[in-house]
């Protein structure tokens, strides 16, 4: 077909341009990556490709080979080098805290000179499998999975891979419900981590202290997130025990948060309980406006969420979660332990944060008990 040849020629240039743009887009996937070299100022981009083969083999075979590597380099440093892949599902404060804690923790780990390769799927679950596959392909020595969906994707990929690359996880409410492990000791040999089971009671106690007559809480959540569903079930059990009711509204997209909050608010709820649901937290500003207009206080399951609009956030110390995982990583990569040595345990250290501004907008005062233990973020 010879339609408008002249136009075709004229547009060849634009086609070329588009191809270039497409190529550029392909590259920029990698731009989302941040390479951080901890402890040693090695050029991170180089180290990833050059040091890989020997070391990784050694490190994968953790018990024996890793110490050898350490001694081999014993001349100028006792540190073993290792590459760690960190995968996060979304740029949510709590989840990023795990990475912060982990990064700081690895920085203090003298036995291992780790190169951290941090990837954020920016909320796009379909990105997880490719990221994990890429890590496994490039023979990372350990993977830190932040959040439940990441854990699920990593476990699936690692099982298929079969080499048994050690996997740690952070900010996972229930690794058992997520199918990553059957019990604290009944788990793959290469898996370890802490169960971040947020104490539900804390939120209820705070709510009861603020409003002794409270009977109803409203929860918006994304039903496709295992994390949120588990958290909701716990909340409902606790509510039943106290004789309270839980009103729920599901969201599938952060743009629906406002409508969901509106719908909850008209059902005479006394509090918004905010779980660590990445979709909800992304659209939390929508709920904050409703909370403001209806004078319904928002209590969040995580201190970091206070920044996003909650009056009070009480939750697990995710930074500590990251540090504890760094401790595991340090022992595993230096050959002192294997993931099998660490049964899955719960941690319960809490961090409390409150916002006097948000509290005032939502019509409450911060109770003294909260003010005592928490930090005021303004």
């Amino acid at each position, binding site marked *: 077909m010879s339609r408008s040849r002249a136009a075709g020629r004229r547009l060849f240039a634009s086609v070329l341009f588009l191809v270039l743009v497409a190529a550029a887009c392909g590259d920029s996937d990698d731009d989302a990556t941040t390479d951080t070299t901890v402890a040693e100022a090695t050029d991170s981009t180089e180290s990833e490709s050059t040091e890989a083969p020997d070391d990784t083999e050694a490190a994968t075979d953790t018990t024996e080979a890793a110490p050898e590597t350490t001694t081999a380099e014993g001349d100028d440093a006792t540190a073993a080098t290792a590459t760690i892949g960190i995968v996060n599902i979304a740029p949510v404060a709590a989840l990023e805290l795990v990475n912060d804690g982990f990064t700081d923790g690895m920085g203090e780990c003298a036995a291992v000179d780790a190169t951290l390769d941090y990837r954020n799927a920016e909320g796009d679950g379909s990105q997880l499998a490719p990221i994990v596959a890429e890590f496994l392909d490039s023979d990372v020595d350990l993977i830190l999975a932040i959040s439940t969906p990441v854990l699920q994707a990593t476990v699936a990929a690692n099982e298929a891979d079969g080499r048994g690359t050690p996997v740690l996880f952070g900010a996972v409410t229930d690794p058992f419900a997520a199918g990553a492990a059957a019990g604290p000791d009944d788990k793959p040999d290469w898996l370890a981590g802490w169960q971040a089971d947020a104490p539900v009671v804390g939120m209820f106690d705070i709510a009861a202290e603020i409003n002794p007559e409270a009977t109803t809480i409203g929860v918006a959540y994304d039903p496709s997130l295992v994390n949120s569903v588990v958290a909701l079930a716990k909340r409902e059990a606790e509510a039943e025990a106290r004789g309270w009711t839980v009103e729920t*509204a599901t969201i599938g997209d952060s*743009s629906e948060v406002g*409508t969901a909050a*509106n719908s909850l608010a008209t059902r005479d709820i006394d509090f918004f309980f905010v779980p660590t649901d990445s979709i909800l937290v*992304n659209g939390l500003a929508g709920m904050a406006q409703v909370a403001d207009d209806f*004078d319904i206080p928002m209590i969040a399951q995580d201190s970091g969420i206070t920044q*996003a609009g909650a009056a009070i956030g009480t939750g697990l110390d995710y930074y500590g979660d990251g540090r504890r995982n760094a401790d595991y990583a340090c022992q595993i990569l230096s050959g002192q332990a294997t993931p099998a040595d660490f049964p899955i345990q719960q941690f319960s250290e809490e961090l409390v944060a409150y916002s006097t501004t948000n509290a005032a907008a939502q019509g409450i005062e911060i109770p003294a008990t909260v003010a005592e233990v928490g930090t005021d973020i303004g």
Partner: protein
Amino acid sequence: MTTESPPAAATVRPPPAEERDGSSIGRIVVGAFLLLLVVALVPTLWGAVSSMGAPQWTEALAIGLIFAPAAMGIYLTFRVLDFPDLTVDGSFPAGGAIAAVLITNDVSAWLALPAAMLLGALLGVVTGCLHIYLRINSLLASIITLTAAFTVNLRIQGSANISLLNSDRIFTPWTEPIRDQLESWFGSTGVQIHRAVTTASMTVLIVVAVLLVLRWFFATEVGLGMRATGANREMSQSQAIDTSRYLIGGVALSNSLVGLTGALFVQHAGFADINSGAGLIVSGLAAVIIGEVLFGSKARSMLARFVAVALGMIAYRAAIALALNADLRFPGTDGFRLEASDIKFATAAVVVVMLAIPRVSETRKERARRRARA
């Protein structure tokens, strides 16, 4: 062929009735089905309507108005240009992204609107060019653009999520006075609805402005050419219309309207999220169809059609709010509340049914015609 067959056929089938049946039977079936549904659901619906407070109605109105330009844009591509375009799922967050960045950097909340339209138009141009010059199927071309747009949007925003709660938005100067006024009239209900009322009353002006521009545009020679391009590309070429340019322009116009919706939405919601907008195309289509069924027949002016689509979007949002409030109780179960996730399915089903009706009636007409000929 024997001489008997024509009269035989004629006795079996009275021609005038058959002429009508295609569309009317479809309509009767659907009508009966809807009627049945309404009768069955009246108690539930009534419960939902009565439990729906003023805040939810006003919120539905505000959101409906915000999404009205997007619905008009989708109408433009789907109905006027006959170019199924999914770019909108990318130009919505794009509009939001550029708006959020301009707002948080204190540039101007008003400037955010034309900027969002421009970015949306740009994405439309990319889709149009992919389709026209690289001959990529329209749906695929728009999916390609939409995929690439994700990266672009993320680059613009810098992070996946930006809060605008502490920034000056176009609604900000009016929020306080309207809040005080409404509070003095309605008390706490007034406070609860003030944000939606502010958004609705300002957005309605923007929507009217968009409608006036569209009315002007489609009354120009270029606008007529664009309609012709969508109606009959071959004929348009022979009427000296550069259909490539008109199509690209039309897709750009459509996406600029979606970008505008994106910019308005982030200002109302108070945040911009890179992952929002998925499924906008289906809700937009639902609005188009609802608008056509409830408010407008095809023969009227372009303005009337766009108004119908805008009203369709408001009706759609109201229906969603209503559905979320409905407490369906089936015998043997302890209550069943429709959730947002169920509504996606319901919307998709409605769109499929509505899109299927004309096809079905066309096939019936065609069959009738063939029988008449035989």
